């Protein structure tokens, strides 16, 4: 287990005991990543703020929702943020607006971290690994993955937008997920 994962585990244990200081430390570590993701998915500042706020409050209310035997805290928490962000855009029925705005966003690859952002060295390193893993994907696989994950689109919607059969979207998505998993597993082993 990496030191950063061990640190998260310890902070999570203290949050479970009601330690507000540990909770604020987790906020400091993950608020930037969570807000960056929520902004990307919702494409609306106010909604993104709600998503981040709700995710952290959910963590405070029910820290036992994270089961350390099922993976890292980082994966759990950011997956929760993603879930809430996608739920929010769908519930708010603002997908059309989001799509229009998202079309103006830069692709994920090539984006850099803005100055002034609190940067955690371990998260920076992992970010580089994730970006490197995304780069090895063939463009057509990366495209469907990004439309689903960062765009919050369903596979049916992606097929419609790209004018390709939904079966092709499914095949590309699975292939992309497999390659990413393999690439990141390799990084974990090194």
């Amino acid at each position, binding site marked *: 287990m990496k030191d950063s994962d061990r640190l998260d585990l310890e902070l999570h244990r203290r949050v*479970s005991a*009601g330690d*507000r200081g540990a*909770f604020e430390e987790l*906020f400091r570590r993950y*608020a*930037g*990543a969570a*807000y*960056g*993701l929520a902004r*990307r998915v919702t494409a609306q500042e106010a909604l993104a*703020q709600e998503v981040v706020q709700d*995710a952290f*409050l*959910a963590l*405070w*209310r*029910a820290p*036992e929702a994270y089961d350390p*035997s099922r*993976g*890292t805290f*980082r*994966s*759990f928490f*950011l*997956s*929760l*943020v*993603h*879930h*809430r962000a*996608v739920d929010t855009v769908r519930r708010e029925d603002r997908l059309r607006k989001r799509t229009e705005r998202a079309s103006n966003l830069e692709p994920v*690859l090539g*984006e*850099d*971290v*803005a100055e*002034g*952002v*609190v940067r955690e060295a371990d*998260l920076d390193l*992992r*970010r580089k690994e*994730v970006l490197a893993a*995304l780069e090895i994907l063939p463009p057509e696989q990366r495209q469907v*993955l990004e439309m689903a*994950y*960062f765009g919050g*689109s369903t*596979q*049916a919607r992606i097929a419609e937008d790209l004018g390709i059969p939904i079966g092709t979207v*499914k095949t590309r*998505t*699975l292939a992309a*997920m497999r390659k*990413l*998993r393999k690439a*990141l597993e390799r990084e974990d082993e090194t």
Partner: protein
Amino acid sequence: MREDHERNLELLAGYALLALEGQDAEEADRLLSEHVPWCATCRATLADFRALTGELALAVPPVEPPDLVLARVRRGIRDVPIRRRRGAGVAALAASVAALVGMAGFSLSLGSRATRAEQDRGTALEVLNAMQEPGADPVALEATSETTPGGLVEISSPGFEHMYLYGDEVPTPAPGNAYQLWLGGGGTFTPFGEPFAPVGGVVLLRLTVDPSRYDEILITEEALGTTPGMPTLEGGHTWRASI
């Protein structure tokens, strides 16, 4: 067979990305209830895909949220303390439901018909799936009387349009009575679903409802055959919780 498994993995990838709708979503629900719990390959793959949906977040450059977000979160944690009385937590709760699923001839129906038993088992498996979701949020209902035995837990999870109610060692209501579930919002309670009674002390209900529309859940004991306009809070077992 191999093609079927590939199809399953495609569904799991779409499911982990929250990208399914319509028939695919229904098929994934069936897969999660009927196949994944018994298939080590699919379980491991789903766990990996879920972990990926957390890691992928890091591909987006971090952006510091405005200070007001931390201020709101601080206010929130001050106003909403950790719910201490949550039963045994997700892992223990999952073990308890899993044990139920594994019981030979498990059924919550009085007649123990095979179709009903299968439905009950399916519901229990759905509860297991809901609990495995990130952010699964079981809430223990508090009995309003200290002498009421047993426990009831409400389970909901982001991405699931159902709320589940699971109870163990729940007392049988008085003769001629049944339990009624109420959902509250804005100070008003509305009866929800059919009256129910535990079978062998076990309660397992699936409710098609958006939990985010309500802020309180209440269970009361009511006379069978009546349509109460208001919950009866005296003279029977009652449980309630904020959700």
